[in-house]
């Protein structure tokens, strides 16, 4: 550890050791592709890119989760395993420095997801409580899984469910998606020959027509979208146009998204919502209840934790729990985390490995340590 570490680093490293974590060694210089692939191109303007002599695009590590997961896959380490890290990350920011410290834990491969989720929230909470003694911490958590279960139970077609699930966590995008569902935008006119094939639902002839168009354009059917894929989606779209989101389904979705309660009441509230809307959320609800109980068992005050049904974090790879921890006097969250059960497969793991983790912005914590609570 370098002397550049923030003053609180020793306490945090002690906490990691006491909680049985393996310290992760993560190189500062990382291949850029996994970050851009996983977090999206939006990251490009916020990271420091460079190039190796051989033309490989590299970046200064902008975060730890992806490199920790990549190293785990490469080393074929056994699971479950909990990795801790504390170090600098590098991002181009309008405010604050471009180098700042983050600390966190990535918990990989624990099949008991309720327990692992609860432990992640508790670890993040404990870290902040150590760094900011005497301050009241507030936790907000959301659940991508419950939201997706509500969409499925409402009987929404797959295309709509996916669109809404992608918008989860962004009030504006969700609003736009719901408006489109209530009143679908008019489609462009199709060429007459194509329109009649669509009307007849003839996927095969449609694919043949599309294949001919691709050939004319010099597009290889193997390099990207295939004719049958385009034909299938075209037919699916035609079907979706005739479906409208019912008033009841729309109201139920709105009622669900408005739920914000202390965790102590969350399971009962969700149960009540499911019953009054006539929805079967059994699996997702059971998982939620188990996690809520596990969080209480970790000794966290369930009154200081809020469940917000519309709360999500803007990263494609979260699959279940998402959470943030802050204080009344911090404008931005001090810690954020969530469950990413798809991430390791996307990064190349042969078998699915569940994962949950969090990261603490130590620069924000440091700024708070300088002012009295």
């Amino acid at each position, binding site marked *: 550890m370098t002397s550049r570490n923030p003053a609180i680093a020793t306490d945090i490293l002690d906490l990691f050791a006491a909680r049985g974590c393996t310290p992760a060694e993560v190189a500062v210089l990382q291949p850029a592709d996994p970050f*851009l*692939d996983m*977090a*999206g*191109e*939006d990251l*490009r*303007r916020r990271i420091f890119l460079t190039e190796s002599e051989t033309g490989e695009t590299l970046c200064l590590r902008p975060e730890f989760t992806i490199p920790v997961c990549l190293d785990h896959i490469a080393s074929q380490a056994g699971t479950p395993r909990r990795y801790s890290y504390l170090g600098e990350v590098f991002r181009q920011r*309008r405010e604050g420095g471009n180098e700042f410290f983050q600390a966190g834990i990535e918990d990989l491969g624990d099949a008991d997801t309720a327990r692992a989720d609860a432990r992640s929230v508790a670890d993040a909470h404990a870290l902040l409580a150590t760094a900011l003694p005497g301050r009241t911490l507030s936790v907000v958590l959301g659940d991508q899984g419950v939201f997706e279960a509500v969409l499925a139970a409402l009987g929404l077609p797959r*295309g709509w469910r*996916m*669109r809404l699930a*992608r*918008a989860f966590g*962004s009030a*504006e*995008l969700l609003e736009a998606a719901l408006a*489109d569902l209530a009143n679908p*935008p008019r*489609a*462009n006119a*199709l*060429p007459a020959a*194509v329109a009649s094939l669509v009307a007849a639902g003839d996927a095969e002839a449609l694919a043949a027509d*599309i294949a001919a*168009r*691709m050939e*004319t*354009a*010099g*597009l*290889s059917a193997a*390099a*990207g*979208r295939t*004719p049958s*894929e*385009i034909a299938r*989606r*075209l037919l699916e*779209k035609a079907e979706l146009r005739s479906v409208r989101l019912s008033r009841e389904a729309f109201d139920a979705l709105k009622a669900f998204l408005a739920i914000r309660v202390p965790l102590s009441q969350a399971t009962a509230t969700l149960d009540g919502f499911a019953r009054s809307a006539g929805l079967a959320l059994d699996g997702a609800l059971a998982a939620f209840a188990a996690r809520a109980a596990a969080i209480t068992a970790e000794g966290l005050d369930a009154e200081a934790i809020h469940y917000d049904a519309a709360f999500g974090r*803007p990263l*494609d790879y979260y699959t279940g729990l998402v959470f943030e921890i802050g204080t009344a006097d911090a404008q931005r969250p001090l810690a954020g985390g969530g469950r990413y059960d798809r991430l390791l497969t*996307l990064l190349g793991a042969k078998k699915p490995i569940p994962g949950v983790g969090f990261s603490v912005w130590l620069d924000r914590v440091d700024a708070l340590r300088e002012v009295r609570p």
Partner: protein
Amino acid sequence: MSVTLALPSKGRLKEQALEVLAKAGLVVALPQDDRTYRARTSIDGADVDVAFLSASEIAGELGQGKIDLGVTGEDLVRETVPHWDTRLRIEARLGFGQADVVVAVPEAWLDVDTMADLDDVAADFRHRHGRRLRIATKYWRLTQQFFSQMHGIQVYRIVESLGATEGAPAAGSADIVVDITTTGSTLRANHLKILADGVILKSQACLVSSLKERPAADAALITAISRRLAAAIA
């Protein structure tokens, strides 16, 4: 103290910029030697340095405050300069050099008309093809703002293209393009179609000033030039 005005160094943009300036009463005395990239003009008896640069260089130099005024495309201003509106001001849109920055997909993608369609396709792409949807463009900043910030589409990759972007889908180096077009004919010739809500920017040549600290006399000169040009094209 002096003010530097940068103009495009060649082609139609150069000619049209000189025409508009002349119409505003700012006649640029062109150097005899074609290889000289410096000239002068004047307004109300005050001299103005003129520099001839490439249009993208003009945007960059304005962003860094190295020149005071420039004629360049709005697309280049928004693409080249991060947080451009904190550093630059568009003084006047000059009514030439019109072109749209657009999202275009293969015509054979009969199921894709809108950005919402593209969002759907992009979300499924990796699962189906083992890689992200690829967009060829030289406008990575505009693309990223339009896709990520306006339409919430995160999962795609940008393939930087330095020329003949419209050929990328047929060449297999990208699936779709973000490109600049005036009439759309090049896109059509390459069997690409513009999405219904896929116009990212309607660009044209602009007089742009750099927002930096400068002596009052220079600031007054910049205001005078901007007013004169705006009046000339009104």
